[in-house]
């Protein structure tokens, strides 16, 4: 068992940290948060350096990283800006990965190259007004019409929504005759009937242009079906195992940023004639953050390594996502407390970390759903153990 990153992953971390330090200043992250401006100049540069094709092969213009490498990239970028970390986690984790895994050769050539180089940004559309945790309740439909499919429905809280030029859309179909048949469609944003709602006014992650997407008689050729008809929920489940590692990494980055800010503030801020870092009450808060972040990092990297070794990662990735996101919220809350009144002010970044961290407990499966997934996995392994001990 090795607990140190190997040289390659250390270099990946160093390269991304250097990129973040030079290109994503705290001021930029704050400006994105306050104005909602999408930093195209940074995103384009990230695209040129492979950040938008983390796991896509180099032949298709990506960086060819493994899951661990991708997690490190998302962690380091999220340390600078949660909203940019979210862009990467969603674009790479739940758009490019299913395209790589379930896409036909033609679809990969057509869509992956542009996405991997950052010329196109992707979105993932599962959640609807009445379907989120219960993915089977979606009401968006794709009905055959001649050779084509006609897509109708409304998706909400679509990350990257306002800047995406391609979306993976989950829709109810009726091509196999199976009940509640769900399929995934690749929808280019320039198609007629692809409509964007206004950017949502969210509590956190405000630098990411989250919006609703509507489809009105949006006509798609059959070639835009990802995988087989009726494979939608299987694709969703397979995708989310990886996606959760991305969100875990994102939460980890926000937690680390909260601790970094706390340590540096506690050394500067003087009360009763000494820096507040000299007081045990502050030290205990920082120590707790350090322990929790270390544990979250181990869980996250372990889940990534599980995916890299091709093992079953549902439980591991759910644990990583659940724990890291809750650690991020606690770390950000403590960071605000350590900063006192200044922590409650927009003049310091920690209140943003708190607002950003909260989102990680909600999207790509709420904490409650992660606990369900973990228990379900535990129960099924307990059941199979019971079976094998009986036989």
């Amino acid at each position, binding site marked *: 068992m090795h607990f140190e990153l190997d040289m390659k992953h250390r*270099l990946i971390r160093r*390269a991304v940290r*250097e990129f973040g330090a*030079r290109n994503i200043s705290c001021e930029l992250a704050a400006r994105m948060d306050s104005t909602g401006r999408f930093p195209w100049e940074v995103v384009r*540069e990230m695209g040129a*350096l*492979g950040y938008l094709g*983390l796991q896509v092969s180099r032949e298709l213009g990506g960086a060819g990283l493994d899951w661990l490498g991708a997690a490190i990239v998302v962690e380091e970028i999220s340390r600078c800006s949660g909203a940019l970390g979210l862009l990467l986690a969603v674009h790479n984790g739940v758009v490019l990965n299913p395209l790589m895994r379930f896409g036909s050769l033609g679809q990969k050539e057509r869509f992956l190259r542009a996405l991997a180089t950052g010329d196109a940004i992707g979105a993932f559309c599962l959640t609807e007004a009445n379907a989120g945790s219960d993915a089977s309740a979606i009401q968006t439909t794709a009905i055959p019409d001649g050779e084509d499919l006609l897509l109708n429905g409304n998706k909400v809280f679509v990350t990257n929504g306002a800047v995406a030029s391609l979306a993976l859309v989950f829709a109810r179909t009726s091509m196999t005759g199976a009940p509640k048949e769900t399929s995934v469609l690749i929808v280019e944003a320039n198609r007629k009937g692809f409509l964007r709602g206004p950017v949502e006014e969210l509590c956190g992650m405000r630098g990411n242009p989250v919006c609703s997407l509507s489809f009105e008689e949006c006509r798609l050729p059959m070639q835009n079906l990802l995988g087989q008809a009726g494979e939608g929920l299987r694709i969703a489940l397979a995708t989310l195992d990886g996606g959760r590692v991305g969100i875990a990494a994102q939460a980890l980055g926000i937690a680390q940023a909260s601790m970094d800010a706390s340590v540096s503030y506690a050394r500067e801020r003087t009360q009763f004639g000494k820096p507040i870092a000299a007081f045990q009450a502050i030290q205990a808060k920082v120590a707790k953050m350090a322990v929790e972040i270390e544990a979250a990092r181990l869980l996250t990297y372990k889940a990534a390594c599980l995916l890299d070794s091709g093992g079953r990662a549902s439980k591991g990735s759910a644990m990583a996502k659940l724990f890291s996101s809750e650690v991020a919220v606690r770390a950000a809350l403590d960071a605000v407390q350590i900063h006192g009144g200044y922590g409650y002010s927009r003049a310091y970044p920690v209140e943003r970390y708190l607002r950003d961290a909260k989102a990680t407990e909600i999207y790509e499966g709420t904490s409650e759903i992660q606990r369900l997934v973990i228990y379900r996995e535990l129960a099924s392994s307990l059941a199979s153990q019971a079976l094998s001990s009986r036989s």
Partner: protein
Amino acid sequence: MEITVCMKQVPQEAEIRWEEGRWSLDRRSVPGRINPQDLEALEVALQLKEAHGGRITVLSMGPLQAEESLMEALAMGAERAVLISDPALAGSDTLATSRVLAAALRKLDPTPAIILCGSRSSDSDTGQVGPQVAEELGLLYGGYALEVEIRQEHVYLLRRLDRRIQRLRMRFPAVVGVLKAPRRPRHIPLGAIEEAFERKECLVWNLRDLGLEPGEVGSQGSATVVVGLRKPEHGRQGRVIALPPHQAVEAILEALREHYAIV
């Protein structure tokens, strides 16, 4: 054109530790990075390669952990990396280090037309290794270069000297010491890191590979020995100058001169 960049792995500033009971830096237990001026030299090399074609070799002397910095240089775009590592090298001063680097540079095939390095290292800050390597090899040395250009048979340097900027023309082959300039070392594409680990490797040479004897290097082969080290004491003192503005300016200038802050 064959370009060689000599680089040193230095401790990250935040992590500097001294070896217990010795007057040297503990380089083993702390994370390292490429000496910033050497990174500038590598950027210059990459720009020269882009303009004129050629191949870049990066060369370093240090413990095995310095391989990480050389892999980083390969990911940035160097073609070949050589690490000179041997337990007998421990304790080498700048003269012994220069002797080792010169031996490695002689062994490189083909011979480099231009050897670039940082003018100084961020840890020991002597600025001696570049000129000494040139001396060992009988080559010209141009230090403090802000810009390096190659035109036909010559290398042109823009050098920052004490109170002037000098343009210098030199013959090949030459050793050039680079300074930090407004140019910034490029970001490493993530795919290039993958590629470096898949397709490139860092060669490791020891003393025998270089045909050097243990007595020529390490503390035995060194001309200088550090026999003591302490932190200078920095006293801070506020001084209020309450004079009319033009007299105050004079007084401030005088105070700065007194402390050699200006000359």
